[in-house]
């Protein structure tokens, strides 16, 4: 048996390997247009949320700075401490409310998209943004509340899982995340901790 003959037989026989049908050009083109439109719409929707993320991080940073500044204990600072304590507490409350609202929006969106198997890279990106804020929240006086601290720790885990999802999602991983959300009642606890409605409305004019 010669190599040449073998290769010829192989090539001929291999033509039937997964022989493709006619290309479904029109159907695929329509799907491509629809997918691109959906991506465009999602990008437009997400842009303001990203801006809120930056805002929350900034507010937290101000809060942490005020906290550290008031902790130095010089006489001049001691004199103004009651006022700064109040503003510091307000800043933390505000940041916590905004953070919890954004996280609630993300997790609610993630769960509903996951049902239709469309959890995608946008969620992973948002989760990464929120992870940083979660760490700041855990290090802030807001985490002195035991219940909030527990919730923040659970959120940190869930956000880390979503952040590590590959693009286009992994169905089994998405199911595991959803199971975790349900078993630990994360969304319910999140809504209980942040019951007063959407952050942007609640905090309008506060700053």
């Amino acid at each position, binding site marked *: *048996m*010669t190599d040449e*003959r*073998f*290769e*010829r*037989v*192989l*090539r001929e*026989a*291999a*033509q*039937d*390997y*997964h022989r*493709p*049908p006619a*290309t*479904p*050009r029109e*159907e*695929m*083109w329509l*799907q*491509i247009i629809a*997918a*691109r439109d959906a*991506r465009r719409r999602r990008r437009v929707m997400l842009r303001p949320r990203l801006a809120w993320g930056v805002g929350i991080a900034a507010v937290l940073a101000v809060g942490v700075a005020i906290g550290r500044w008031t902790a130095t204990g010089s006489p001049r600072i001691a004199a103004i401490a009651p006022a700064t304590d109040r503003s510091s507490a307000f800043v933390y409350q505000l940041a916590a409310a905004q953070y919890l609202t954004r996280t609630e929006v993300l997790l609610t969106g993630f769960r509903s998209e996951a049902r239709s198997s469309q959890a995608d890279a946008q969620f992973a990106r948002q989760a990464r943004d929120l992870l940083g804020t979660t760490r700041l929240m855990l290090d802030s006086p807001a985490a002195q509340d035991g219940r909030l601290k527990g919730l923040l720790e659970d959120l940190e885990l869930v956000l880390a899982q979503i952040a590590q999802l*590959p693009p*286009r999602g*992994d*169905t*089994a991983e998405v199911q595991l995340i959803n199971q975790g959300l349900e078993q630990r009642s994360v969304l319910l606890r999140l809504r209980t901790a942040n019951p007063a409605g959407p952050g942007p409305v609640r905090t309008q004019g506060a700053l």
Partner: protein
Amino acid sequence: MDERELIARVRAGDGAAERTLYDAHVDRVYRLAYRLAGDDGLAREFTQDTFVRAFERLASFRGEAKLSTWLHAIATSVVLNGLRKVKRFRRRETDLEDAAGVAGGRRAAEPDLKRRLAQAIDDLPHGYRTVFVMHDVEGYTHEEIGATLGVETGTSKAQLSRARARLREALADFAGEWVS
């Protein structure tokens, strides 16, 4: 319209140019996706994903390679990553079925060269199978395969040679078919 002009028009948001680019390349992309996936649904999904990504990233195409090479590099990356996920998922499903004791036994190999060949190609390692399908089934040159997969031409040749050797081994029972 030459390729450079077409790309410029697509970048400028010309819908007709997008369709022209799609029409020029979709057959080859779909055929390759189908050959590698062996499933119409997956092949469509991979092809669509390839073009969605290509249109999004066209701004970053610097023209160092031919557009078709660049497009096929996206396509093979989409297909191979997609197949890895599908394989992982199917493996989990199979494990579950095995655990439940409901899985049927493997069908006995059919005494038919093409069926055995298909099975042998499926069993090739990823890299060998990709090169074999691209070269021996779809007729890509080693230069095209190298540029698409980001490997040296020599690597493509070596992988094809190893793939053929494995297939020859797997099809030893059928030696009579090609012995003259």
